[in-house]
């Protein structure tokens, strides 16, 4: 057996152990009475969904969007609005939130994708801020103060999103399914075309590929997934404020993504995990926990501009693109 396949066997083993750990985590935290950590991992998974969708958009599609948090807000506020109207089935709410976010992404994408580069950055930022201000002006959902879910969402089988373990497994399952779907997509014909559009738009247009359509579809998919992540987030916190849509949140996601590694399969997830871990850690030792994060961002950009994933020996990681 050559060393390459030995190493890929090793990475499969690592994957299995990690998966087992994640699935078994609720029992473990229950045993150790460390419910806080289950909460933390669930939040990490939820944010990882959003970061991975942004990775698809920025890392593989080359579309630097600075308004992605806006779609999370759309998802969260869809859940808030429907709960306020009396609906309580988690499955329907999560589904509707995804569809509504996809619709918003279609409209915003159609506007923003008419431009490129920095103008695209600014247009997505503008649209994200518009969504933020809509959230601020919605008095019925609490304006600036935010909206509290009146009760946990119903998941059927007598379970709700208030059941820590059940909701955790739901989020874990959804996240794994979404990661698998994204990985499948980037190796599909569509994904290859998307990456080619990023590398050379003119050539792809000349070859007859519907460049705009490919971009717009990716934008809609990324927006929909961010919306689902936002819907999970409101169920996780039982709470949402317009702050989730602010442009600094979108910028934070970009920062996490660059930290993890843009255009690497696990770039978004690694970025979120490291970012949240650092945040937790720094918060415990100092009240001024922003500046070390800032220095880390600057250091990453100067030392390893392709992110943490680029530091992992290439034999141990699955094929990268980008």
């Amino acid at each position, binding site marked *: 057996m050559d060393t390459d396949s030995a190493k890929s066997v090793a990475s499969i083993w690592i994957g299995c152990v990690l998966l087992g750990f994640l699935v078994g985590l609720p029992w473990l935290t229950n045993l150790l009475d460390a419910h806080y950590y289950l909460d933390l991992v669930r939040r990490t998974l939820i944010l990882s969904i959003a970061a991975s969708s942004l990775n698809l958009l*920025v890392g593989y599609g080359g579309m*630097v969007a*600075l308004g992605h948090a806006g779609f999370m807000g759309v998802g969260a506020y869809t859940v808030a609005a429907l709960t306020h109207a009396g609906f309580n089935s988690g499955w329907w709410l999560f589904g509707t939130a995804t569809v509504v976010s996809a619709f918003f992404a279609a409209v915003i994408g159609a*506007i923003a994708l*008419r*431009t490129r*580069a*920095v*103008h695209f*950055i*600014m*247009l997505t*930022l*503008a*649209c994200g*801020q*518009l969504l933020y*201000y*809509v959230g*601020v*002006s919605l*008095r019925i959902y609490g*304006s600036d103060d935010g909206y509290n879910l009146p009760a946990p969402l119903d998941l059927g089988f007598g379970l709700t999103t208030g059941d820590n373990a059940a909701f955790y497994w739901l989020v874990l399952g959804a996240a794994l399914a979404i990661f698998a779907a994204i990985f499948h997509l980037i190796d599909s014909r569509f994904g290859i075309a998307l990456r080619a559009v990023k590398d050379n738009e003119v050539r792809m247009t000349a070859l007859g590929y519907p460049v705009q359509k490919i971009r717009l579809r990716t934008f809609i998919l990324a927006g929909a997934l961010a919306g689902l992540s936002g819907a999970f987030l409101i169920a996780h916190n039982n709470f949402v404020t317009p702050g989730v849509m602010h*442009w*600094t949140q979108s*910028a*934070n996601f*970009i*920062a996490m993504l*660059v*930290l993890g590694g*843009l255009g690497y399969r696990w770039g978004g997830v690694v970025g979120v995990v490291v970012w949240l871990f650092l945040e937790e850690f720094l918060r415990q030792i100092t009240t*001024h926990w*922003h*500046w070390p*994060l*800032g*220095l*880390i*961002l*600057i250091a*990453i*950009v*100067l030392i390893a*501009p392709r992110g943490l994933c680029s530091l992992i020996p290439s034999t141990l990681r699955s094929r990268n693109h980008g």
Partner: protein
Amino acid sequence: MSAQFIAEQLLHGLGYGLMLFLMAAGLTLVFGIMDTLNLSHGSLFMLGAYLSATVHQYTDSFVTSIVVAIVGTIAVAALLEAALIRRLYSASHLVQVVATMGVIYVADDLVMMIWGEAPVMASTPAELGGPIYLMADWPYPAYRFLVLGAGLSVAALLYFLVNHSRLGMLVRAGASDRQMAELMGLRVKRIFMLVFAMGAALAGLAGSLMGPITAVQVGMGESIMIPALAVIVIGGIGSIRGALIAAVLVGVVEALGKAFGPYLLTTWFSAATTADVLPAVTSMLMFVLMIAVLMFKPRGLFPAHG
């Protein structure tokens, strides 16, 4: 609603627009020449405001406070340029966004450590505390009048410098085609350092002038950065003229929104709803303006690149 009220709102808008222009002028040249998106420009604005508020408090001299603010901001900017920004020129916009976000994090925390979390009171200079009379029965705050005057004179100075001086010619050459300018023997990097320092000085000036009008607090840099970025995109990247026109446009549109918004909104909504949505709607106007301009002119009104 009297004509005087509208005129007053327009003057407010013009004043705000001119301050935006001071922010945008440096930003648009840095962007135009070096293709570098510097989000931390707002931190220099914040620094200017804090420095002048503190110096004004201790020396009681408004002029000293502004001079110290400008010099201090230039010094910090020079440090920033040498330590970080210089390494970002050839990087992608994305990397620039992330690195300068990092600078914002550091700057906000440092300011919080030095000055504390509570907003700092920046007082208006005593001589300018009262109103002046633009007409017999039309008082206008003297300090706002000073801001207006300072903004207009700096804009005129900058216009002259960029459009009618040798240095300005070199700057414009760098902004419209950097590679060609370099091939013609222009030392773009040296010019650029000068432009960066000038931009920092303008940001510091804007910060110290805006201090007494708005709250001097952490986060003020981020909240002026977005309008300033909108201004350079609307005006066309790299163009001083575009930045001036767009800045005044944004300032006036916001002022008119505040003036006419309540009257327009009450025709559609109840008074209570109007009160709820009004602040958000006026904040949205700028973005709507930007989206509208980019729809018809995707490169802004007066792009510098041929």
